[in-house]
């Protein structure tokens, strides 16, 4: 099964009832697969006029009670940033899959890239916190899509699955667990007399429209009841601190990371997505040459597992950060390492060219000299 098909099937298992999208390479198969499958289960799929409309429709459907999703690639992800901020501000659960390709602009639509990492964290304007999951296999794209819905429902926030052209177009064997064994989370609903639906660090209950709660949803600064405050400093400060805190104070339970040899390594590698697949082989070959390589692979890239990266770096002569961009994860790793070791950026962009285990091995060997 391809990554994109696995993603679409996972959405069905997670309870997705509404998909709105706009065609874009290399994400369209998610849309096409759901266009076929979702209506069979009674769900709705609609093609919108652009990506702003796609996420807008997803947000509307979410407030009407549906678990809703869209998928796109870099150019469309840029257009969605406007409403990603709106979804964060209004605490609207929704899932956005970004299948990265080489950019900026149209770039190379069919070729892999990892240049949306920082956009996934900082893409919208203003202050916010992001939850971004980064799969490195078809199996993980399946699992993380389900988890993205669960996190969106738990924290009432947009959640991004940051895939890439390689993971999404790759065909791999995968195992779907028995549906009864899959944890599915649904949003907390209000009690009949509740009137506070926003701005709670432990996540406010979410009514749907048409349930009689007269809920006022706004992207403007608002209080717990949704009432707008366009100029009030304490309300804005309280709102933003609560919305960011809602995620960052739960960062430990959100964060998911794979590690290898981080306590006894000479050199460290931090990598995510398709690039991280080359690291395992490089670690194995280095081991045979007598070099122990530590590896941190953030499965949740945001919030970033900075303590684990820092812990590994303390043992290392160098920390290597390979990625298919001109250096984005590098800056976050460098920040987390805090001078404990030199951080080396290994970059490759365009043409679908991957960073190979051999290239990593060369960097690793150079670092221990």
């Amino acid at each position, binding site marked *: 099964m391809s990554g994109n098909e696995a993603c679409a099937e996972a959405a069905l298992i997670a309870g997705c*009832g509404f998909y709105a999208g706009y065609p874009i390479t290399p994400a369209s198969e998610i849309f096409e697969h759901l266009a076929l499958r979702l209506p069979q289960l009674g769900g709705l799929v609609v093609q919108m006029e652009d990506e*702003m*409309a796609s996420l807008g429709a997803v947000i509307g*459907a979410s407030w009407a009670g549906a678990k809703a999703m869209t998928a796109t690639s870099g150019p469309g992800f840029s257009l969605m940033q406007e409403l990603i901020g709106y979804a964060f501000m209004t605490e609207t659960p929704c899932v956005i899959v970004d299948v990265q390709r080489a950019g900026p602009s149209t770039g190379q639509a069919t070729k892999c890239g990892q240049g949306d990492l920082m956009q996934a964290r900082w893409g919208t304007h203003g202050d916010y916190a992001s939850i971004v999951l980064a799969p490195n296999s078809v199996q993980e794209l399946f699992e993380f899509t389900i988890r993205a819905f669960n996190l969106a429902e738990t924290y009432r926030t947009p959640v991004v699955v940051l895939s890439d052209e390689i993971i999404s177009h790759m065909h791999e064997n995968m195992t779907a667990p028995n549906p009864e064994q899959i944890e599915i989370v649904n949003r907390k609903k209000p009690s009949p007399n509740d009137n506070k639906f926003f701005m709670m660090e432990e996540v406010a209950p979410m009514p749907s*429209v*048409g349930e009689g709660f007269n*809920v006022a949803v*706004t992207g403007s600064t608002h209080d717990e009841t949704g009432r707008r405050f366009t100029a009030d400093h304490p309300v804005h400060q309280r709102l933003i601190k609560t919305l960011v805190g809602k995620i960052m104070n739960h960062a430990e339970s959100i964060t998911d990371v794979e590690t290898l040899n981080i306590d006894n390594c000479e050199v460290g590698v931090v990598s995510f997505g398709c690039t991280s697949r080359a690291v395992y082989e490089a670690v194995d070959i280095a081991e045979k040459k007598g070099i122990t390589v530590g590896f941190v692979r953030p499965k949740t890239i945001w919030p970033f597992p900075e303590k684990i990266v820092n812990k590994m770096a303390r043992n290392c002569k160098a920390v290597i950060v390979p990625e298919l961009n001109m250096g984005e994860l590098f800056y976050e790793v460098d920040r987390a390492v805090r001078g404990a070791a030199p951080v080396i950026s290994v970059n490759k962009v365009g043409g679908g060219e991957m960073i190979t285990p051999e290239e990593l091995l060369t960097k690793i060997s150079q670092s221990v000299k």
Partner: protein
Amino acid sequence: MTTEPFSMKRYLRPDLTLPFCVGCGCVNVMSSFLRAAHELGHVDLNKFVFCSGIGCSAWIPSPYLMADSLHTAHGRSIPVALGVKLMRPDLNVVVFGGDGDLSGIGLSHLIHAARRNLDILVVMVNNMIYGMTGGQVAPTTPFGAKTTTTPYGNFEYPLDVTKLMVASGASYVARWTTAHGEQLKEAMKKGIKTKGFAFIEAASPCPTAFGRRVGFRDVAEMLHWFVDNSIPLEVASKHTEKELIGKIVIGEYVNRMAPTLSDNISKMVREAQQVA
């Protein structure tokens, strides 16, 4: 029909004061809509969901109406309304927006909603200016009008959004001004009842950011200008396009039936379920 007398307060959140400037047409549009809902027998707004974007008229529903309301990003009210309506076809989804919001930044959504025959009512409050941001030129500003971003006069031609909606496939289209309260209310009733995409343009005075800049001394003068410049649709048909420049052609443009997006999408879902 309800026998109780109309009370606007019944439909408003009790502890809020309306934000509109003195003479703003948004209050008239709000009143026309609520009178229409009242006359259709709605004692409350529980069967309505309101969506709006950014601008003064976006504040007509949000958060003042005692109802569910989604105050969205600039221009994006209609896509959000689409998501709501498709999931809850039993609810009346109504969009309030300005000419800048709906026919500037959000124009493609408006056209596509009409094309799809999305079963919602869109009320466009046309004050011919970006009012909330202080009076910049809009896609609807008359040629030659001085605004803060066209201090030497508007050098572009205005868009006739109502005619565009007719061409785009809307089920119901009407244009009135806030000086035509009764007709506007009757149009709102038809718009609410329309099964399909309904669009009502309400030409509306913005004395603060438009009226005083183009030389009106007060709101009364602006409303008189609305009345004097309005030409009923049937009369307008006897005039040339050139003669109609600067006029507001009022009336019911279209009232037709066609299957809605909700009808068509549920048909598709039924077929898909049979295949499965």
